[in-house]
């Protein structure tokens, strides 16, 4: 559903953001997009949404050139930005104004999500709400549009602690076998058990694009007091309970993906990760 091929991009006079970047994403998954500050996560989302144009290379979203911003593409894509823009109108009027752009918008779902987030009045002016409350309204709206593609940039920033749990629950309700959800975030704990594929962006390239199953097939994540292991260790971190290890999975043991450990392991072993995941079989 999203195809980026040989993308080159830089801001005016700035350093290169993307250098021959290619990425292909399919429906039916919740992807987590990770990278250090300034790696270009937001820029990548903007290129997919047709809001930034690559210097060279092609960006195809839902079969259309993203930069053309055809109505066919826009009504099937929702981009939730990190800082949400809200006009000075009520929630009810916001829906009246913006829902018609999305033919599969479901008002019942919207109200259910708002209810779960404990937003009770549809008559409150959006500008009178706190930052976190605004974000809850726009997240609910974004999910209720039922677009084929949903891009989310730091969706949990500004949400209070209970709302993060509700966010995860709502995401599992909104995910389905056709929808492509791409979430960019530093809050890895907020995506716990939610994402089923990982994209890591580093130094202008995609360092890793793999499903969680593929990752746990090739790598082991474990806590152990045992220092002796015959598996090649990619990353080790000391912890009160023992050593947190990421190793190559040579004994085919199925462990639980830890995104934070994965990210650190990938950053330390870029070449080996590339060999493990990108080698043509």
């Amino acid at each position, binding site marked *: 559903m999203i195809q980026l091929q040989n993308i080159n991009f830089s801001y005016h006079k700035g350093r290169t953001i993307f250098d021959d970047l290619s990425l292909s994403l399919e429906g039916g998954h919740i992807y987590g997009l990770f990278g250090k500050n300034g790696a270009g996560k937001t820029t990548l989302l903007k290129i997919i949404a047709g809001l930034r144009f690559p210097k060279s290379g092609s960006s195809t979203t839902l079969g259309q050139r993203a930069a053309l911003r055809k109505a066919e593409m826009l009504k099937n894509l929702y981009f939730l930005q990190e800082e949400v823009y809200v006009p000075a109108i009520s929630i009810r009027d916001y829906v009246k104004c913006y829902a018609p752009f999305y033919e599969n918008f479901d008002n019942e779902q919207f109200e259910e999500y708002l209810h779960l987030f404990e937003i009770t009045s549809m008559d409150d002016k959006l500008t009178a709400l706190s930052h976190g409350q605004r974000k809850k309204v726009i997240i609910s709206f974004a999910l209720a549009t039922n677009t084929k593609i949903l891009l989310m940039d730091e969706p949990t920033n500004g949400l209070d602690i209970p709302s993060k749990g509700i966010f995860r629950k709502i995401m599992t*309700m909104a995910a389905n*076998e056709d929808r492509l959800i791409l979430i960019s975030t530093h809050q890895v704990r907020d995506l716990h058990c939610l994402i089923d594929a990982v994209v890591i962006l580093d130094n202008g390239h995609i360092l890793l694009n793999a499903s969680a199953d593929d990752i746990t097939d090739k790598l082991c994540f*474990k806590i152990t007091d045992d220092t002796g292991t015959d598996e090649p260790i990619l990353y080790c971190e000391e912890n009160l309970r023992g050593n947190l290890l990421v190793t190559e999975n040579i004994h085919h043991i*199925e462990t639980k993906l830890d995104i934070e450990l994965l990210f650190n392991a990938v950053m330390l072993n870029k070449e080996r990760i590339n060999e493990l995941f990108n080698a043509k079989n």
Partner: protein
Amino acid sequence: MNFNDNKAIYLQIAEWVFEQILNGNWKEGDRIMSVRELGTLLVVNPNTILRSYDFLQKLEVIVNRRGVGYFVAPDATDKIISHRRKQFVEEEVPAFFKTMKLVRMSWEELAELYKES
């Protein structure tokens, strides 16, 4: 649901299903929650639930009737016990014996503890 640190989540979910069946919350022959319903209940990606259900189908603990849903197999309890037995013998017993030797515990002591339990 709280997941422990090491084991794959889809296996932990399968164990949670074993518990539901063994303690009678889910009865043999009953229809169980759909992939999406269980995903929302446990707050887990639906694809992970699907993987658990595939695994449970291979063990013949649940069956999928196309277009209707998933059901607890009529002999699910026996299947779970035989699977858990195999797991116990292959994975847990060796570690248990290792610790027994380490703390120099004899069979007789163990038998006493077993009688008391």
